């Protein structure tokens, strides 16, 4: 079972050195315990481009699909047997990156 662990932020500031080090430790643990699938940090909403080609005429918009105070800034994809394990890992992850986290199952 895989979960998308989204990192939510409301500030454009990058992770501090301290946060970066804590994330590295957390990532190593995910890998050592077999939970690691993939992870990455993202550019802010200002760097986003939305494409809508539902009508055959591709429409390109500068910016995120929805403007909001809080937005996605990075994510992990983890392997976990159930939500309890995923939430326990996400709890650690939130502490490591010092950000709010959303956990969602892949279907």
């Amino acid at each position: 079972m895989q979960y998308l662990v989204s990192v939510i932020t409301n500030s454009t500031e990058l992770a501090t050195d301290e946060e970066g080090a804590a994330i590295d430790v957390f990532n190593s643990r995910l890998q050592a315990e077999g939970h690691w699938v993939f992870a990455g940090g993202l550019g802010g909403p200002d760097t986003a481009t939305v494409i809508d080609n539902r009508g055959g005429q591709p429409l390109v918009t500068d910016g995120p699909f929805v403007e909001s105070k809080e937005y996605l800034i990075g994510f992990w994809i983890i392997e976990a047997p159930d939500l309890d394990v995923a939430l326990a890992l996400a709890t650690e992850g939130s502490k490591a990156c010092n950000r709010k986290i959303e956990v969602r199952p892949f279907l």
Partner: protein
Amino acid sequence: MVGALTRRFGDLDLAEEAAAEAFATAVQRWPTDGVPPAPGAWLTTTATRKAIDSIRRENKRGGKQKEAQLLYDDGPGEPLGAVDDERLRLIFTCCHPALAMESRVALTLRMVAGLSVAEIARAFLVQESAMGRRITRAKAKIKLARIPYRLPSADDLPARVSGVLAVLYLVFNEGYLASGPGTDPVRNELTAEAIRLTRLVRALLPQDGEAAGLLALMLLIEARRAARLSPGGELIALDEQDRTAWDRTLIAEGHRLVRERLAAGAAPGRYQLLAAINAVHTSAHDARSTDWRQILALYDQLLRLDPSPIVALNRAVAVAELDGPQVALGAVDRLADTLAGYHAYQATRADLLRRLGRGEESRAAYDRAIELTGNAAEIAALRRRRDRSRTG
């Protein structure tokens, strides 16, 4: 087993319901009939049968007799190992912290207590379709996000048990004093279900002091039910109740549990302290002989554990009995910032003002309390006290 049934039926809803019924049957029959040679297979067969006639059974549910039966302990339950574990798993799943509180309450009543969606919707004054959606959504989340059917680990258990007890206490309180005007002011079916489920948790986790404490608390409150409502449908305060109408059997059991916890010697939690307070009340033959000093000491202990304004408000009631209404009013007034919109705050303040002969202020506070209350029986009681304040 719910997992196995889900795989077999391909329907979480039906599987959970059927499994819960099968466990209930097992709990009832195995102590007398003996555990069958293949308990797992027996449960699966029973659950399958239950699934098939679940709809028909649901229509026959209800009735006052059943409510009455739910209330009393039917003897010492034999610990049943695997069966108990399964039932506990279901409770922990329904009360999972990843679900919203209202979903936990609804799911527990549906899956564990077996109430129909319509009954739950009525209890919480929402449309049946809305309640149905809430339950469906919660079940879909359990399935898709894979909330496990598993007892929490030893590390998580205390926090998770307290989550389960919070759900059961919420169900009980809604029955004890319904929050809205659209239902009976006291909903016996909810208090009965809450007591039944708390009995179960208590039987399954006998070492948990708070489970015992919550059960004792519920029993000691439930024991006073017959004396709480006047024939005219007005709530009767503790000091005005006819104590001969209290249920001695429930009181005896509640007192036994409180004594058991005292003997255990462990530091009591919130429910144990509330149970102890209610044990003091139910030990007094009349309101005058209430040991307020002991009640105040218990509230002091509770306040250290849970320094909430509501505890402080209840403590002030004991202070009024010991140090007089003037001292108590001072304590109550300090809570105005947080509790001014809470009906019990206004009602307590009104009572104190009335005792101090400050009639006009007292009536204004009663009016405010009446505005803030949704419960018809409580409104009737507040009106009577307000009018007494006018003449006295």
